[in-house]
C-alpha cells in the first residue's frame, strides 16, 4: 500500500514515514502542494492514502485537497489533513472539500497509526490488535 505525505517539515515527514513503514506501507514524500500534485499525477492516482499539511509554501494543503477531489482520476484517494490549524470553520472547510479525516498537531504516534488505519478502513483491526496486546 502506498501513502503520500505532503508536508513542508522534514521532521514531520520523517515521523509519518516511520508510522507508515511500521504499518507496512510504502511512504512517498512531497514538501509542498505542487510537488504533491505532481506525485499524484505521476502515479496516476495509484495511492491508498494522502496525508496533507495545511500551511505550506505555494499551493496550500487545502488547495491540493480541492484539486484532488475535483479530479475524476484522483478523487477516490482518501485524504487526511494533518495540521496545526484547528478552527472549526477550517475543519468544516476541509471536510466539505472531501477530507476523510482531520488530525491536529501535536499528535502521538499511536493516534497517527490509528487514524491512518481508520482512513484505510482498518480501524477496527487496529483496536482489536491493541486489545490483544494489552490482554
Amino acid at each position, binding site marked *: 500500500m502506498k501513502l503520500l505525505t505532503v508536508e513542508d517539515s*522534514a*521532521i514531520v515527514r*520523517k515521523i509519518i514515514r516511520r508510522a507508515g513503514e511500521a504499518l507496512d506501507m510504502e511512504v512517498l514524500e512531497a514538501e509542498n502542494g505542487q510537488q504533491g500534485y505532481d506525485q499524484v499525477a505521476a502515479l496516476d492516482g495509484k495511492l491508498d492514502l494522502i496525508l496533507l499539511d495545511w500551511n505550506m509554501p505555494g499551493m496550500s494543503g487545502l488547495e491540493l485537497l480541492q484539486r484532488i477531489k475535483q479530479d475524476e482520476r484522483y478523487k477516490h484517494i482518501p485524504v487526511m489533513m494533518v495540521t*496545526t*490549524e484547528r*478552527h472549526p470553520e477550517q475543519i468544516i472547510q476541509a471536510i466539505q472539500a472531501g477530507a476523510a479525516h482531520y488530525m491536529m*498537531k*501535536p499528535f*502521538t504516534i499511536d493516534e497517527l497509526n490509528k487514524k491512518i488505519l481508520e482512513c484505510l478502513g482498518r480501524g477496527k483491526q487496529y483496536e482489536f490488535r491493541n486489545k490483544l496486546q494489552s490482554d
Partner: protein
Amino acid sequence: MNSETSYNPIEENWTKFTRALDNMLLMMSGLELTMEETSPADWPEEDMCFGGLMVLASMRPSVLVIEATHETAANIISYMTGDEASQLSAAELLDGMCEMVNMVAGEAKSHVLDSADGFDLTSPIAVRGEQLGFTIKTGAISKRLYAVQEGVHLRMSYYPL
C-alpha cells in the same frame, strides 16, 4: 473583586502557551518536564544555540520564542523521530524548532479562537548561532519559562508587542 480588572490577557495567554508546550513535548516526544518560571537574571549560563520563533498576528501582536541548547534540540527531535540524536543534522534541528513553535502556537490559538485574545499563526522562523539571546524592546512584560530534565534544557518566552 472585579473580574474585568483582574483579567490579565498576558497571563492568560502565557498559561495557554506553557500548557501547549507541555502537551506538545509529551505527545510528540514522550517527555515530561519540570518547568519553572524564572526571571532572565536567574537563568543559568547555557549555550542556547537553536531558536524557533513566531510572530502571532492580531490587533495586539506578540512573539513566541523557544530556545534550546544543541543537546536539547537534538534530544527532543530524536525522541520525536526515533533517530539517533548524534545523527541529526543542523537543518533537521532547525526544522524541528520551527515545528515545535508552530505546534505550541497552534494549540494555544485553539483556546482563544474568536476571542479578543485570538491570533493568527505566521510562518515560523528558526535561528542558529552561539549564545543566542532575544531582546524585544517594547517595554512590555516578557514571560519566560525554564524547563529542565536530564539532557533537556529549554526556554520559552512570550513578548506582547
